[in-house]
């Protein structure tokens, strides 16, 4: 009785093998399927009043990461951005001070080192180079140490990287103010680098004379995080 096979056909095995087959096809062709899905669904997902579609695993959705146990909050009224360290004139700018400075508009992709990418994101903000010039960077300075008001996250850039035209302190993204979950009211956007460089909840830019590795860099990510040329990845460059 125990060794006798129960009646019926082995549908269970067919389901398992079918799933494994589909899974393999999905791994090999998933990239192409996903791009097509994303293009087909874009008219729907971009005008979806319910927001439900943003939870579907099509490409083109931001995923929200925080490293602390909370989502930091700071209103535009209380917001201050400090630029200090090896500078002639330390700055302490309010949100309105930032809006009063010359604005830079970018429309560039956001590429995460974990693989997802959001295409053609509109960004608006003030170039870091302008802020650095205003503060007057001293001759021995080489790097920036950048701090988030989440109390844990930090980033690093060389002065040359920070002075690029596509590196901004952004207060607008996706045609609206930068929301709290995206790092508002002001975040960094480092166009040519992986997303972990675009620090959220920007609080302080300290000009220093040595590399201080950022939060993820201490944990093994590349310091020079060029999209497609670091972290063992070969994504298309974003900028």
């Amino acid at each position, binding site marked *: 009785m125990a060794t006798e*096979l129960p009646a019926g056909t082995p549908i*269970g095995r067919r*389901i398992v093998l079918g799933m494994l087959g589909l899974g393999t096809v999905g791994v090999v062709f*998933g*990239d192409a399927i996903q791009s097509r899905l994303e293009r087909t669904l874009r008219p729907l997902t971009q005008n979806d009043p319910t927001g439900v579609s943003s939870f579907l695993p099509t490409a083109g959705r931001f*995923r929200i990461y925080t490293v*602390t146990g909370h989502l930091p909050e700071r209103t535009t009224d209380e917001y201050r951005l400090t630029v200090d360290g090896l500078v002639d004139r330390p700055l302490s700018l309010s949100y309105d001070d930032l809006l009063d400075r010359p604005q830079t508009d970018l429309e560039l992709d956001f590429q995460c080192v974990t*693989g997802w990418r959001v295409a053609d994101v509109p960004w608006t903000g003030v170039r870091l180079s302008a802020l650095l010039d205003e503060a007057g960077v001293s001759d021995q300075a080489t790097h920036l140490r950048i701090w988030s008001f989440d109390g844990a996250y930090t980033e690093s850039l060389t002065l040359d990287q920070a002075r690029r035209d596509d590196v901004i302190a952004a207060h607008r993204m996706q045609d609206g103010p930068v929301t709290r979950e995206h790092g508002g009211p002001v975040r960094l956007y480092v166009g040519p680098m992986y997303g972990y460089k675009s620090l959220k909840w920007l609080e302080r830019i300290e000009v220093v004379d040595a590399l201080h590795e950022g939060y993820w860099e201490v944990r093994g990510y590349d310091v020079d995080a060029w999209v497609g040329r670091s972290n*063992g990845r*070969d994504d298309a460059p974003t900028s």
Partner: protein
Amino acid sequence: MIDRFGRATRALHWATAVCILTCALTGLVLYVGPLSAVVGRRNLVKDTHVIAGLAMPVPLVLAYAGRWRREIRGEFRRLARWTRADRRWLLSRGRDARDQVGKFNAGQKFNGAFMAGMIPIMLATGSMMRWFEPFPVEYRTGATFVHDWTAIATWIVVTGHILMGVSDRMALRGMVRGSVSRAWAAETHPLWAAEHPDPADPADPGHADPASVSEMEGTSP
């Protein structure tokens, strides 16, 4: 009462359930932006997800390693084979062919097969996402794609499975304590109940249980 599930089967079920639920909940936190933002502690959530995922097939392997192997194999054989009546039962969503349901109905058989397919898929694609260095970038994207959609399917199947379990207390009892009432077995799994004739009533192949009949006051004279 009739014995429905042995200790090894129940241990395998609940150990796998703990791993799947842990992965489902931590995965949800990692995946849903606003939730991710509320919970934070991404490293801890991610590590928990990876450990629970790697642990998921371990109970299965152990189930096949020990003395209890025979018990587990017997259950898997019953789960894997579908009769014509099973297909009718499933297509009619449990209305037709109710008298031909064996130890597992077609829904349970589907659930079992889905889990058997889901675990290796999630293990493989999850590993590609976690240890991505050796893989070309389009395979990594493909792995994420498969992992995401399989996760959504798993959420649907597991939610259905849990709802079925908690809405039928005797079915749940079978998996928690191992035994079920004869009346329930005869009603929902008649072919299986017939394999366990009531020793107290050799004339009856498992249909009427004296204990359960006497519980229904007024139906017996």
